[in-house]
């Protein structure tokens, strides 16, 4: 075990995989010369060669499209989109192409592609460097979407994503990059795609979250325990698609109370699916209405500190407060 932050865990895992398997190529804007905007691949162009660490033109659709071609011809491309906010030009290539190649060819072709991209806010990124994009992609059959929140999960899920025969969107919350550290196994451990994880056990209520919000929830749960002796179970979704409904429902049935917390705009966000699933499958196990906390329905978050705070900062207290209310409901 080694203590690392999230971005280091990602870097180390990706580095080790590349060293093991030369079918893996990394492509994206500024991944070569500069080693990536978040410095994940510094020095790799020299280490693995320019053929494997490819600085692409500024063209996300082309970048993903080229990666799809590589994936259909024996390579295992890892495409980096510099910021999740800039993945939108590639929407068609991801949704119409990567996600449908296996289905449309009746299983004859596959597309083992990983798309990594830093997402989420709270880092002064304003409207176009703060977006949450999981809701757009988790809805797409044929695509897997994961979003780790801890260094160990980041490493383990990235390895699983690379080993996966189908396209995986790998979302990295920027605010976890350096802020979140933890123990990471030194071996090549895998975290299976499609499995949620109980990050804190509890009995009074279940809080389901993912991404940076997960840490907000863990923090609130820990304070609630200290302050009020309330025991909150915190479930880390980790894999948005496929969604591990079994783990979520099992926890909710045990605690009889559920809340769902996510950073993305609330309405039609990914949390709606989780709430809906609980409502359909476990409604009569519940002692109180399900609580949903999502971001405000404004385009990502503004730049000015007071405005960004309105989006991100009320959250910790809001989560704490709503947990408290739900526990007493």
């Amino acid at each position, binding site marked *: 075990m080694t203590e690392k932050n999230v971005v280091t865990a990602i870097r180390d895992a990706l580095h080790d995989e590349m060293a093991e398997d030369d079918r893996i190529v990394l492509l994206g804007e500024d991944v070569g010369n500069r080693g990536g905007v978040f410095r994940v691949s510094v020095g790799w162009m020299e280490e693995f060669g320019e053929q494997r660490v490819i600085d692409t033109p500024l063209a996300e*659709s082309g970048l993903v499209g080229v990666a799809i071609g590589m994936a259909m011809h024996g390579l295992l491309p890892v495409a980096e989109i510099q910021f999740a906010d800039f993945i939108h030009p590639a929407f068609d290539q991801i949704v119409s192409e990567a996600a449908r190649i296996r289905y449309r060819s009746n299983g004859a072709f596959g597309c083992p592609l990983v798309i990594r991209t830093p997402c989420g806010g709270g880092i002064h990124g304003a409207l176009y460097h703060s977006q949450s994009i999981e809701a757009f992609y988790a809805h797409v059959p044929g695509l897997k979407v994961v979003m780790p929140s801890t260094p160990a999960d980041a490493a383990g899920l990235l390895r699983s994503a690379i080993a996966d025969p189908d396209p995986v969107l790998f979302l990295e919350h920027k605010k976890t990059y350096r802020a979140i550290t933890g123990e990471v196994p030194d071996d090549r451990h895998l975290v299976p795609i499609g499995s949620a994880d109980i990050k804190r056990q509890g009995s009074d209520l279940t809080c389901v979250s993912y991404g940076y919000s997960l840490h907000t929830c863990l923090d609130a749960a820990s304070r609630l325990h200290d302050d009020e002796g309330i025991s909150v179970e915190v479930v880390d979704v980790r894999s948005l698609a496929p969604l591990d409904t079994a783990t979520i429902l099992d926890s909710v049935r045990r605690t009889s109370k559920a809340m769902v917390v996510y950073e993305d705009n609330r309405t039609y966000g990914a949390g709606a699916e989780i709430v809906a699933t609980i409502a359909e499958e476990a409604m009569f196990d519940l002692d109180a209405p399900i609580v949903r906390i999502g971001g405000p329905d404004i385009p990502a978050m503004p730049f000015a500190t007071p405005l960004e705070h309105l989006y991100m900062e009320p959250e910790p207290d809001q989560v704490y407060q709503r947990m408290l209310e739900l526990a007493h409901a």
Partner: protein
Amino acid sequence: MSTRVAPTPHGALGLSDDDLRAMYRLVLTARLLDEAALRQNRMGRAAFVVPAEGHEACQVGTGWAMRKGVDIWLPYYRDGALVLAAGMTPYEVFLGIFAKADDPSSGGRQMPSHWGHKKLGIITGSSPIATQVPHAAGIAYAIKYRNEDAVVGCWFGDGATSEGDWHEGLNFAGIHKLPVIFVCENNHYAISVPQSKQMAVEHVADRAAGYGFPGVVVDGNDVLACYEAMKHAHDRARAGEGPTLIECKTYRFLGHTSDDDDKTYRPRDEVELARQHDPVHVLGTYMREHRLIDDGGAEELRASVKGEIEEALAAAWDAPDPDPSSAMRHVFAEPAGGVGQ
């Protein structure tokens, strides 16, 4: 003084008489297959068909320069003649038209003419226009990376050249000097939109200069001209000299698809004029002129192709439909599948 026989035009290109006969058979098969498929559509037995009529020469000409089983093909929906050149059989084509379980493209999941054939190196295609262009570049990159001796062919219409993906795909291919050939089958319309409303230039090929590789214009009704341009591009690609953009000027004789009525947007005399350069007749005339076929042979050939098509059609019609429950399969790899297959 020794007497020397002047070489035939096809001989000068290194094509044997048998090559020409095979090419002619392909062109004719495509045409007769189209006609048969349209009849099936009119009879209500095929919901949707896409005729290639008018495009046969540029498809067979460019396809003939590709190596079956070695090179990689990314056709578009208009490429009914091209996929025959790539090795698909009329039976396989009809399996797609009737949406049968054994349709090699998609098992009846996609509309007909959304080609794919793993064994023949025909990459699965979709409906959205021009998305295959970056794929072609990516495959060519992988070929180069893996030091394979393969060339990628990528076909599309004039309409496709307006899409961002087209620009991004060609640009990437140019930067990395990839072994890929881009073939534009310019029939001067994207459904009803005439070329003048699609671009302010006369030649699509002129855009190649902006990507740092050659663009050539050929008569798309002349199978030999198309072959020659493609062969040259293919040699370039194998020699590591990078991509080529080939623009074949051609014309679509029928509606965009069986759902379209082109009378609303194309003047009849324009269509009639184009038909005077019907690539099937042009090649037929060449065959006769160079004594590669005579009237009897032509009749025989036509009868033989017709027979082949009728047989294929009947067999495909009788083939099993996909099982409804199979619709849920292959969203993701099934347990047996491995990485990168």
